[in-house]
């Protein structure tokens, strides 16, 4: 990874540097793609500008993900792959989140609706909280999953729990626990359920296995 010769860098970088002097931390070029590191506190403001400014028009969020390096000292990165469909331009934007502080970054759901499930996936897999997301809950793992965040480097490939423990929990799990609170509120019938079912559901909501 190199600082890159200036002709390879996306023209958006110069605009970003003049407009958000302190917001751009550094710029890299890797395999022909421009990567811009932003100040996490100003990321949302700068992403909104990139989306709406007539000179940028990054109207398409190609992907949103996170990267954690094997080097434990390196911060975790949240990555937005932006694309301008009209200008046929791509830009990769990143913020670095120090691992000793809470992993929090502003949600971009208000800019791109497509960020909804992508942010939920990053939350599910890395434990990054997206401030302002309307429905931030696990998406691929079940809501009562307690082993941690699977794509973090401190998560062993086979999980924290032993196979025997996983099997025991799976057998002891209450299928109704998978009906989340939200669905029960849709049903508006929770109050009418028999007491024993209410009791089992209530245990399931806490995700605690007997």
């Amino acid at each position, binding site marked *: 990874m190199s600082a890159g010769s200036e002709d390879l860098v996306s023209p958006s970088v110069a605009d970003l540097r003049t407009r958000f002097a302190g917001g751009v931390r550094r710029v890299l070029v890797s395999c022909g793609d421009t990567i811009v590191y932003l100040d996490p506190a100003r990321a949302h403001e700068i992403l909104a500008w990139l989306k709406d400014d007539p000179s940028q028009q990054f109207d398409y969020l190609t992907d949103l993900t996170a990267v954690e390096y094997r080097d434990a000292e390196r911060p975790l990165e949240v990555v937005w792959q932006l694309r301008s469909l009209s200008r046929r331009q791509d830009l990769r934007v990143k913020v670095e989140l120090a691992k000793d502080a809470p992993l929090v970054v502003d949600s971009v759901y208000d800019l791109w609706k497509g960020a*909804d499930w992508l942010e939920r996936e990053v939350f599910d897999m890395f434990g990054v909280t997206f401030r302002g997301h309307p429905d931030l809950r696990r998406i691929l*793992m079940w809501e009562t999953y307690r082993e941690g965040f699977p794509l973090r480097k401190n998560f062993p490939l086979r999980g924290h729990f032993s196979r025997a423990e996983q099997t025991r929990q799976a057998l002891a799990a209450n299928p109704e626990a998978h009906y989340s609170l939200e*669905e029960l509120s849709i049903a508006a019938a929770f109050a009418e359920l028999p007491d024993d079912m209410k009791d089992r559901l209530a245990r399931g909501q806490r995700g605690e296995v007997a």
Partner: protein
Amino acid sequence: MSTRTIEVGLRTPGLDASGAVTLEPLGVRLPEHTPVQDDLGGEHMLVNIGPQHPATHGVLRLVVELDGETVVRVVPHIGYLHSGFEKLGEYRHYNQIIPLTDRTDYLSPMANNVCLALAAEKLMGIEITERCTVLRVIACEISRIISHLVWLGTTGIDLGAFTPFLWLFQQRERLYDLQEAWTGARLTTSMTRVGGLMADIPDGFEQGLRDFCRTFPKTLDEVDSMFTRNAIWCGRTQGVGVISGPDAINYSLSGPMLRASGVDYDVRKDRPYLGYETYEFDVPVGEHGDIYDRYRVRLEEMYQSNRILEQALDRLAGLKGAPINASDPRVILPPKHRAMSDMEAMIFHFKQVMEGVKAPVGEAYLGVENPKGELGYYFVSDGTAKPVRWRVRPPSFINLACLPKLCEGVLLSDVIAINASIDIVMGEIDR
């Protein structure tokens, strides 16, 4: 006890004096605003569809809130097929990830294999040979046809048309025979390697594919004549599950879902890879963004893929005997007889098998136009033989995320049609 109205939107296409297509109400149409007694007393009902339900195309679970038969809200639940592929990829060499890609979008495994090889080659800066490029194009387009055939057949079944399913699966079987002859597998193809291919095409493959290309459009024409102006098909699909162009962009839709809404973006045209810019083909674009337009886009894409296959076969004829692998001993295994007789070849063989191919420090994102949409692989490397992060940009995951929006206010039976029109494959959504 409240009352509400059901509007039945069955229409059939006709022609006006100038020859333009018009939509006439079908004879069975109910009088408008027929009051229907609501025996639920206005209470909403919660219906659970799936995860084991044939119309959800895999293990998708939908929780649908209904007001009578009208959908108020849809909450999709996914993850039943989660296998942690991205995590597994961090523990494997680049070539060892290829079998994982077979199992993500298992309706187009060859296209996934190609994307992975291209992304790794972009990261490592490897040039591939011309014959390899043409063969990969053939693999991608075969995958596109197979995937669209499955989509059209199963969607037809979801909407009550059984016969075209059999016609389409017959054609799919012909392609699967070719794919099996080439890769040895119907599904787990693993046919690319970083820098080349697992194997060259076998004898008779070219002739078989030529025969397919010649006769396949006839089946498409038959299906076209069964569906495109069919009153029931039009009634179930036209104006259902509509998403506008700007919304489709905002929801990050890709592939036929994006193009059916009138957005002209195809990775093959706009970010060409594998020399797609040198092939002659058209990109169909819809205008209404409904299920019908998605059907028309996918149908036309099959004709266009057939065109690309014919051109690729012509090019292949001029590349007989050309190498399929890059001449780069760092990434390509030497032939076995050389590894057993030549010291240098044996060292390269040993290092590749034991240590894997080391990628330089850096990162690369490469997106390709898969049948379902834009599939992107994002590699981050710290200089070792295993990636720090292997991210899949899953097209059907992102397309499915807009299902709740598409299903606002439709009838319950339309949820099945809309879900089918997205063309999801759960292996890729859950990964």
